[in-house]
Protein backbone atom coordinates (compact mmCIF):
# COMPACT_ATOMS: atom_id res chain seq x y z
CA UNK A 1 0.00 0.00 0.00
CA UNK A 2 1.80 3.10 -1.24
CA UNK A 3 0.49 5.58 1.31
CA UNK A 4 1.13 3.27 4.23
CA UNK A 5 3.07 5.24 6.85
CA UNK A 6 5.51 2.31 7.28
CA UNK A 7 6.61 2.89 3.70
CA UNK A 8 8.10 6.25 4.66
CA UNK A 9 11.01 4.53 6.40
CA UNK A 10 13.16 4.33 3.25
CA UNK A 11 12.87 8.01 2.30
CA UNK A 12 13.22 8.96 5.98
CA UNK A 13 16.52 7.06 6.27
CA UNK A 14 17.74 9.06 3.24
CA UNK A 15 16.52 12.38 4.74
CA UNK A 16 14.26 12.58 1.69
CA UNK A 17 10.87 13.23 3.22
CA UNK A 18 9.06 16.41 2.25
CA UNK A 19 8.13 19.18 4.67
CA UNK A 20 5.69 18.00 7.27
CA UNK A 21 6.05 14.29 6.52
CA UNK A 22 8.88 13.98 8.97
CA UNK A 23 6.76 14.91 11.95
CA UNK A 24 4.16 12.37 10.86
CA UNK A 25 6.72 9.64 10.48
CA UNK A 26 8.54 10.41 13.73
CA UNK A 27 5.25 10.17 15.60
CA UNK A 28 4.70 6.81 13.98
CA UNK A 29 8.27 5.76 14.74
CA UNK A 30 7.76 6.31 18.44
CA UNK A 31 5.03 3.69 18.38
CA UNK A 32 6.35 1.22 15.82
CA UNK A 33 9.08 -1.16 16.90
CA UNK A 34 9.32 -2.69 13.43
CA UNK A 35 10.06 0.66 11.80
CA UNK A 36 12.65 1.52 14.46
CA UNK A 37 14.46 -1.73 13.76
CA UNK A 38 14.32 -1.26 10.02
CA UNK A 39 15.43 2.31 10.32
CA UNK A 40 18.52 1.35 12.34
CA UNK A 41 19.75 -0.88 9.50
CA UNK A 42 18.83 1.52 6.71
CA UNK A 43 20.48 4.45 8.51
CA UNK A 44 23.68 2.47 8.75
CA UNK A 45 23.66 1.85 5.01
CA UNK A 46 22.80 5.49 4.29
CA UNK A 47 25.63 6.72 6.54
CA UNK A 48 28.05 4.44 4.69
CA UNK A 49 27.26 6.44 1.53
CA UNK A 50 29.13 9.34 3.16
CA UNK A 51 32.32 7.34 2.58
CA UNK A 52 31.52 7.25 -1.13
CA UNK A 53 31.74 11.02 -1.57
CA UNK A 54 34.99 12.36 -3.06
CA UNK A 55 37.45 13.24 -0.33
CA UNK A 56 38.19 16.89 0.27
CA UNK A 57 40.29 18.55 2.95
CA UNK A 58 38.47 21.19 4.97
CA UNK A 59 40.38 24.39 5.67
CA UNK A 60 42.22 24.20 9.02
CA UNK A 61 40.41 27.25 10.39
CA UNK A 62 37.10 25.35 10.27
CA UNK A 63 38.22 23.18 13.18
CA UNK A 64 39.29 26.24 15.15
CA UNK A 65 35.96 27.96 14.50
CA UNK A 66 34.01 24.92 15.65
CA UNK A 67 36.06 24.51 18.82
CA UNK A 68 35.87 28.23 19.64
CA UNK A 69 32.11 28.21 19.25
CA UNK A 70 31.77 25.02 21.28
CA UNK A 71 33.84 26.57 24.05
CA UNK A 72 31.63 29.66 24.03
CA UNK A 73 28.55 27.47 24.41
CA UNK A 74 30.06 25.27 27.06
CA UNK A 75 27.76 24.88 30.05
CA UNK A 76 29.04 26.39 33.25
CA UNK A 77 30.64 23.29 34.68
CA UNK A 78 33.68 23.44 36.91
CA UNK A 79 36.46 21.72 34.97
CA UNK A 80 37.12 19.17 37.70
CA UNK A 81 38.73 16.80 35.30
CA UNK A 82 41.83 18.95 35.27
CA UNK A 83 42.52 18.04 38.88
CA UNK A 84 45.27 15.54 39.22
CA UNK A 85 44.34 14.38 42.68
CA UNK A 86 40.79 13.75 43.54
CA UNK A 87 40.37 15.40 46.92
CA UNK A 88 37.10 17.29 46.61
CA UNK A 89 34.58 16.17 49.21
CA UNK A 90 31.88 13.98 47.77
CA UNK A 91 29.28 16.41 49.08
CA UNK A 92 30.63 19.10 46.80
CA UNK A 93 30.80 16.68 43.92
CA UNK A 94 27.20 15.68 44.53
CA UNK A 95 26.18 19.25 43.82
CA UNK A 96 27.08 18.72 40.18
CA UNK A 97 24.07 17.47 38.33
CA UNK A 98 25.90 15.48 35.72
CA UNK A 99 28.39 12.95 36.92
CA UNK A 100 30.57 13.44 33.94
CA UNK A 101 32.84 16.17 35.25
CA UNK A 102 33.60 14.00 38.23
CA UNK A 103 34.18 10.89 36.20
CA UNK A 104 36.54 12.77 33.98
CA UNK A 105 38.44 14.21 36.92
CA UNK A 106 38.98 10.75 38.17
CA UNK A 107 39.81 9.43 34.80
CA UNK A 108 42.26 12.19 33.87
CA UNK A 109 44.20 11.28 36.99
CA UNK A 110 44.09 7.62 36.03
CA UNK A 111 45.53 8.30 32.60
CA UNK A 112 48.97 8.52 34.19
CA UNK A 113 49.04 4.78 33.96
CA UNK A 114 49.09 3.43 30.41
CA UNK A 115 48.01 -0.02 31.62
CA UNK A 116 44.88 1.48 33.13
CA UNK A 117 42.12 -1.16 32.77
CA UNK A 118 39.52 1.61 32.68
CA UNK A 119 41.10 3.12 29.60
CA UNK A 120 41.60 -0.31 28.11
CA UNK A 121 37.86 -0.93 28.23
CA UNK A 122 37.08 2.55 26.92
CA UNK A 123 39.35 1.94 23.95
CA UNK A 124 37.35 -1.08 22.77
CA UNK A 125 35.06 -0.37 19.80
CA UNK A 126 31.53 0.33 20.95
CA UNK A 127 32.47 0.89 24.59
CA UNK A 128 30.38 3.28 26.66
CA UNK A 129 30.88 5.37 29.73
CA UNK A 130 27.90 4.95 32.06
CA UNK A 131 27.31 7.48 34.82
CA UNK A 132 27.30 6.50 38.49
CA UNK A 133 26.15 9.90 39.60
CA UNK A 134 28.58 11.96 41.63
CA UNK A 135 30.65 8.92 42.56
CA UNK A 136 32.06 8.37 39.09
CA UNK A 137 31.28 6.00 36.29
CA UNK A 138 31.69 2.61 34.78
CA UNK A 139 33.23 1.81 31.41
CA UNK A 140 31.44 -1.05 29.67
CA UNK A 141 32.52 -2.77 26.45
CA UNK A 142 30.02 -4.57 24.18
CA UNK A 143 31.41 -7.95 25.32
CA UNK A 144 30.37 -7.11 28.90
CA UNK A 145 33.85 -6.33 30.20
CA UNK A 146 33.47 -3.50 32.70
CA UNK A 147 35.66 -1.37 34.94
CA UNK A 148 34.56 1.04 37.65
CA UNK A 149 36.21 4.37 38.32
CA UNK A 150 34.81 5.68 41.59
CA UNK A 151 35.83 8.15 44.24
CA UNK A 152 35.30 6.35 47.54
CA UNK A 153 37.33 7.24 50.67
CA UNK A 154 39.13 4.37 52.49
CA UNK A 155 36.56 2.08 54.11
CA UNK A 156 36.68 1.64 57.92
CA UNK A 157 38.95 -1.28 58.84
CA UNK A 158 36.05 -3.61 59.64
CA UNK A 159 34.24 -2.81 56.39
CA UNK A 160 34.70 -3.20 52.65
CA UNK A 161 33.12 -1.78 49.55
CA UNK A 162 31.32 -4.34 47.45
CA UNK A 163 30.30 -3.92 43.81
CA UNK A 164 27.13 -5.53 42.41
CA UNK A 165 25.77 -6.34 39.00
CA UNK A 166 22.00 -6.02 39.26
CA UNK A 167 19.76 -7.46 36.59
CA UNK A 168 16.04 -8.14 36.71
CA UNK A 169 16.02 -7.26 40.41
CA UNK A 170 18.77 -9.76 41.29
CA UNK A 171 22.10 -8.58 42.66
CA UNK A 172 25.23 -10.63 41.99
CA UNK A 173 28.49 -9.95 43.86
CA UNK A 174 31.01 -8.24 41.58
CA UNK A 175 34.11 -7.67 43.65
CA UNK A 176 35.40 -6.07 46.85
CA UNK A 177 37.60 -2.99 47.16
CA UNK A 178 38.94 -0.92 50.00
CA UNK A 179 38.57 2.60 48.67
CA UNK A 180 41.26 5.24 48.86
CA UNK A 181 41.95 8.93 48.63
CA UNK A 182 41.57 9.53 44.93
CA UNK A 183 40.13 7.14 42.43
CA UNK A 184 39.55 3.46 42.84
CA UNK A 185 39.76 1.54 39.57
CA UNK A 186 37.87 -1.72 40.01
CA UNK A 187 37.65 -4.45 37.39
CA UNK A 188 34.30 -6.20 37.46
CA UNK A 189 34.99 -9.96 37.44
CA UNK A 190 31.72 -10.96 35.75
CA UNK A 191 30.21 -9.84 32.43
CA UNK A 192 27.94 -6.81 32.68
CA UNK A 193 24.98 -7.41 30.35
CA UNK A 194 23.00 -4.72 28.59
CA UNK A 195 20.05 -3.66 30.73
CA UNK A 196 21.82 -4.20 34.05
CA UNK A 197 22.84 -1.69 36.72
CA UNK A 198 26.09 -1.52 38.70
CA UNK A 199 25.93 -0.57 42.36
CA UNK A 200 28.36 -0.22 45.27
CA UNK A 201 27.50 -0.82 48.93
CA UNK A 202 29.52 -0.69 52.16
CA UNK A 203 29.51 -4.16 53.75
CA UNK A 204 31.24 -6.02 56.59
CA UNK A 205 34.81 -7.12 56.00
CA UNK A 206 35.04 -10.16 53.74
CA UNK A 207 31.96 -9.21 51.79
CA UNK A 208 28.47 -10.70 51.61
CA UNK A 209 26.42 -12.65 49.07
CA UNK A 210 23.54 -10.16 48.98
CA UNK A 211 23.68 -6.43 49.66
CA UNK A 212 22.63 -5.49 53.20
CA UNK A 213 22.78 -1.71 52.79
CA UNK A 214 21.46 0.90 50.45
CA UNK A 215 23.84 1.59 47.55
CA UNK A 216 26.35 4.39 48.04
CA UNK A 217 26.54 4.67 44.27
CA UNK A 218 24.47 3.27 41.48
CA UNK A 219 24.93 3.45 37.73
CA UNK A 220 22.43 4.33 35.08
CA UNK A 221 21.15 1.39 33.11
CA UNK A 222 23.87 -0.08 30.93
CA UNK A 223 23.13 -0.09 27.21
CA UNK A 224 25.59 -1.67 24.86
Amino acid at each position, binding site marked *: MADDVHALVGPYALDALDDGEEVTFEQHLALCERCREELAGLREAAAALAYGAPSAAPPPELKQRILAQARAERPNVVPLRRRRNWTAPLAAAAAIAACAAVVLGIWAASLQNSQDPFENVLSKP*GSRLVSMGAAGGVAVAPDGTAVLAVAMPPAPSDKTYEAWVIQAGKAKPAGLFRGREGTSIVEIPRPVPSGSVIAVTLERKGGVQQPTRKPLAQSERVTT
Partner: protein
Amino acid sequence: MIGMTLEPPRTRELVHLSDEALLSLVASSDEDALAELYDRFGGLAYGLALRILRDDALAQDAVQEAFLSIWRTADRFLAERARASTWILTIVHRRAVDLVRREDRRRGEPLESAPEPAAPETVEEEATLGFQRRVVQEALRRLPPEQREALELGYYGGLTQSQLAERLGQPLGTIKSRTFSGLARLRELLAQAGLEESFSN
Protein backbone atom coordinates in the same frame (compact mmCIF):
# COMPACT_ATOMS: atom_id res chain seq x y z
CA MET B 1 54.01 7.99 17.28
CA ILE B 2 55.51 10.72 15.10
CA GLY B 3 55.01 14.22 16.39
CA MET B 4 53.85 12.95 19.74
CA THR B 5 55.67 15.63 21.66
CA LEU B 6 53.79 18.32 19.77
CA GLU B 7 50.40 17.15 20.95
CA PRO B 8 48.85 17.89 24.30
CA PRO B 9 48.87 14.80 26.51
CA ARG B 10 45.10 14.46 26.73
CA THR B 11 44.64 14.35 22.99
CA ARG B 12 47.27 11.68 22.71
CA GLU B 13 45.32 9.46 25.09
CA LEU B 14 41.98 10.12 23.38
CA VAL B 15 43.34 8.69 20.14
CA HIS B 16 42.86 5.20 21.57
CA LEU B 17 39.23 5.59 22.53
CA SER B 18 36.27 4.19 20.60
CA ASP B 19 34.02 6.67 18.79
CA GLU B 20 31.29 5.81 21.29
CA ALA B 21 33.47 6.52 24.31
CA LEU B 22 34.50 9.82 22.72
CA LEU B 23 30.86 10.77 22.30
CA SER B 24 30.32 10.03 26.00
CA LEU B 25 33.07 12.51 26.77
CA VAL B 26 31.62 15.07 24.35
CA ALA B 27 28.30 14.68 26.18
CA SER B 28 30.07 15.91 29.28
CA SER B 29 31.42 18.99 27.45
CA ASP B 30 34.94 17.71 26.91
CA GLU B 31 36.44 19.95 24.22
CA ASP B 32 39.43 17.70 23.63
CA ALA B 33 37.06 14.85 22.84
CA LEU B 34 35.21 17.07 20.36
CA ALA B 35 38.53 17.95 18.74
CA GLU B 36 39.43 14.28 18.45
CA LEU B 37 36.03 13.49 16.98
CA TYR B 38 36.52 16.26 14.44
CA ASP B 39 39.92 14.85 13.53
CA ARG B 40 38.24 11.52 12.84
CA PHE B 41 35.14 12.70 10.99
CA GLY B 42 35.76 16.30 9.90
CA GLY B 43 37.28 15.42 6.54
CA LEU B 44 34.60 12.87 5.75
CA ALA B 45 31.89 15.33 6.82
CA TYR B 46 33.36 18.10 4.69
CA GLY B 47 33.71 15.84 1.63
CA LEU B 48 30.07 14.82 1.98
CA ALA B 49 28.82 18.36 2.54
CA LEU B 50 30.79 19.59 -0.45
CA ARG B 51 29.34 16.83 -2.61
CA ILE B 52 25.82 17.82 -1.60
CA LEU B 53 26.20 21.62 -1.56
CA ARG B 54 28.85 22.09 -4.23
CA ASP B 55 29.94 25.28 -2.52
CA ASP B 56 32.86 25.60 -0.14
CA ALA B 57 31.34 28.22 2.17
CA LEU B 58 28.03 26.38 2.45
CA ALA B 59 29.82 23.08 3.06
CA GLN B 60 31.82 24.64 5.88
CA ASP B 61 28.58 26.01 7.36
CA ALA B 62 27.01 22.57 7.24
CA VAL B 63 29.99 20.91 8.93
CA GLN B 64 30.16 23.61 11.59
CA GLU B 65 26.45 23.37 12.36
CA ALA B 66 26.66 19.58 12.46
CA PHE B 67 29.55 19.48 14.92
CA LEU B 68 27.91 22.07 17.15
CA SER B 69 24.74 20.01 17.05
CA ILE B 70 26.81 16.97 18.09
CA TRP B 71 28.33 19.07 20.88
CA ARG B 72 24.90 20.08 22.16
CA THR B 73 23.08 16.78 21.80
CA ALA B 74 25.71 14.06 22.34
CA ASP B 75 23.89 13.03 25.52
CA ARG B 76 20.99 11.87 23.34
CA PHE B 77 23.25 9.44 21.56
CA LEU B 78 23.84 7.57 24.80
CA ALA B 79 20.27 6.31 24.73
CA GLU B 80 20.54 5.00 21.20
CA ARG B 81 21.87 1.71 19.99
CA ALA B 82 23.31 3.11 16.82
CA ARG B 83 26.98 3.17 16.04
CA ALA B 84 28.56 6.54 16.82
CA SER B 85 29.75 6.97 13.22
CA THR B 86 26.21 6.42 11.92
CA TRP B 87 24.80 8.95 14.37
CA ILE B 88 27.42 11.55 13.48
CA LEU B 89 27.17 11.12 9.71
CA THR B 90 23.38 11.22 9.89
CA ILE B 91 23.59 14.63 11.56
CA VAL B 92 26.07 15.89 8.98
CA HIS B 93 23.92 14.69 6.11
CA ARG B 94 20.80 16.21 7.61
CA ARG B 95 22.49 19.64 7.98
CA ALA B 96 23.79 19.53 4.44
CA VAL B 97 20.43 18.66 2.86
CA ASP B 98 18.67 21.26 5.02
CA LEU B 99 21.09 23.87 3.69
CA VAL B 100 20.83 22.76 0.07
CA ARG B 101 17.02 22.91 0.20
CA ARG B 102 17.06 26.34 1.85
CA GLU B 103 19.48 27.53 -0.82
CA ASP B 104 17.33 26.07 -3.61
CA ARG B 105 14.30 27.90 -2.28
CA ARG B 106 16.22 31.15 -1.97
CA ARG B 107 17.41 30.90 -5.57
CA GLY B 108 14.09 29.57 -6.76
CA GLU B 109 15.76 26.63 -8.45
CA PRO B 110 17.92 23.66 -7.64
CA LEU B 111 21.61 24.47 -7.20
CA GLU B 112 22.42 22.20 -10.07
CA SER B 113 20.11 19.96 -11.95
CA ALA B 114 21.97 16.68 -11.95
CA PRO B 115 24.64 15.21 -9.73
CA GLU B 116 27.79 14.44 -11.61
CA PRO B 117 27.96 10.89 -12.86
CA ALA B 118 30.57 8.82 -11.08
CA ALA B 119 33.64 10.26 -12.75
CA PRO B 120 36.32 7.86 -13.88
CA GLU B 121 39.16 8.01 -11.42
CA THR B 122 42.64 9.08 -12.37
CA VAL B 123 45.55 6.97 -11.29
CA GLU B 124 46.40 9.44 -8.55
CA GLU B 125 42.86 9.46 -7.22
CA GLU B 126 42.68 5.72 -7.38
CA ALA B 127 45.86 5.50 -5.36
CA THR B 128 44.62 7.85 -2.67
CA LEU B 129 41.08 6.56 -2.41
CA GLY B 130 40.53 4.95 0.91
CA PHE B 131 39.53 1.34 1.24
CA GLN B 132 36.13 2.32 2.55
CA ARG B 133 35.44 4.66 -0.34
CA ARG B 134 36.29 1.99 -2.87
CA VAL B 135 34.08 -0.56 -1.18
CA VAL B 136 31.12 1.82 -1.00
CA GLN B 137 31.51 2.87 -4.62
CA GLU B 138 31.79 -0.74 -5.68
CA ALA B 139 28.66 -1.64 -3.70
CA LEU B 140 26.81 1.25 -5.37
CA ARG B 141 27.87 -0.01 -8.78
CA ARG B 142 26.47 -3.41 -7.99
CA LEU B 143 23.01 -2.08 -7.14
CA PRO B 144 20.26 -2.32 -9.76
CA PRO B 145 20.55 0.95 -11.73
CA GLU B 146 17.14 2.28 -10.71
CA GLN B 147 17.96 1.78 -7.03
CA ARG B 148 21.39 3.35 -7.39
CA GLU B 149 19.90 6.35 -9.17
CA ALA B 150 17.34 6.92 -6.43
CA LEU B 151 19.95 6.63 -3.65
CA GLU B 152 22.46 8.90 -5.38
CA LEU B 153 19.96 11.60 -6.24
CA GLY B 154 18.46 11.39 -2.77
CA TYR B 155 21.58 11.09 -0.65
CA TYR B 156 24.12 13.13 -2.61
CA GLY B 157 21.64 15.32 -4.46
CA GLY B 158 19.49 16.13 -1.45
CA LEU B 159 16.25 15.61 -3.40
CA THR B 160 13.09 14.87 -1.45
CA GLN B 161 10.95 11.91 -2.40
CA SER B 162 8.49 14.08 -4.32
CA GLN B 163 11.38 15.71 -6.21
CA LEU B 164 12.73 12.24 -6.92
CA ALA B 165 9.36 11.14 -8.23
CA GLU B 166 9.24 14.13 -10.55
CA ARG B 167 12.83 13.80 -11.72
CA LEU B 168 12.58 10.09 -12.37
CA GLY B 169 9.04 10.19 -13.74
CA GLN B 170 7.86 7.57 -11.27
CA PRO B 171 4.97 7.46 -8.84
CA LEU B 172 5.77 8.27 -5.22
CA GLY B 173 5.09 4.69 -4.14
CA THR B 174 7.82 3.47 -6.48
CA ILE B 175 10.28 5.97 -4.99
CA LYS B 176 9.44 4.78 -1.48
CA SER B 177 10.08 1.18 -2.34
CA ARG B 178 13.21 1.94 -4.38
CA THR B 179 14.84 3.88 -1.58
CA PHE B 180 13.91 1.18 0.90
CA SER B 181 15.09 -1.76 -1.15
CA GLY B 182 18.13 0.19 -2.38
CA LEU B 183 19.34 0.86 1.17
CA ALA B 184 18.52 -2.67 2.29
CA ARG B 185 20.46 -4.13 -0.65
CA LEU B 186 23.35 -1.73 -0.08
CA ARG B 187 23.54 -2.89 3.50
CA GLU B 188 23.78 -6.50 2.39
CA LEU B 189 26.50 -5.70 -0.12
CA LEU B 190 28.52 -3.78 2.46
CA ALA B 191 28.14 -6.62 4.95
CA GLN B 192 29.37 -9.08 2.33
CA ALA B 193 32.37 -6.88 1.70
CA GLY B 194 33.14 -7.16 5.41
CA LEU B 195 32.71 -3.46 5.81
CA GLU B 196 30.67 -3.60 8.97
CA GLU B 197 33.81 -4.02 10.97
CA SER B 198 35.96 -1.55 9.16
CA PHE B 199 33.31 1.11 9.65
CA SER B 200 32.87 0.37 13.31
CA ASN B 201 36.16 1.93 14.16
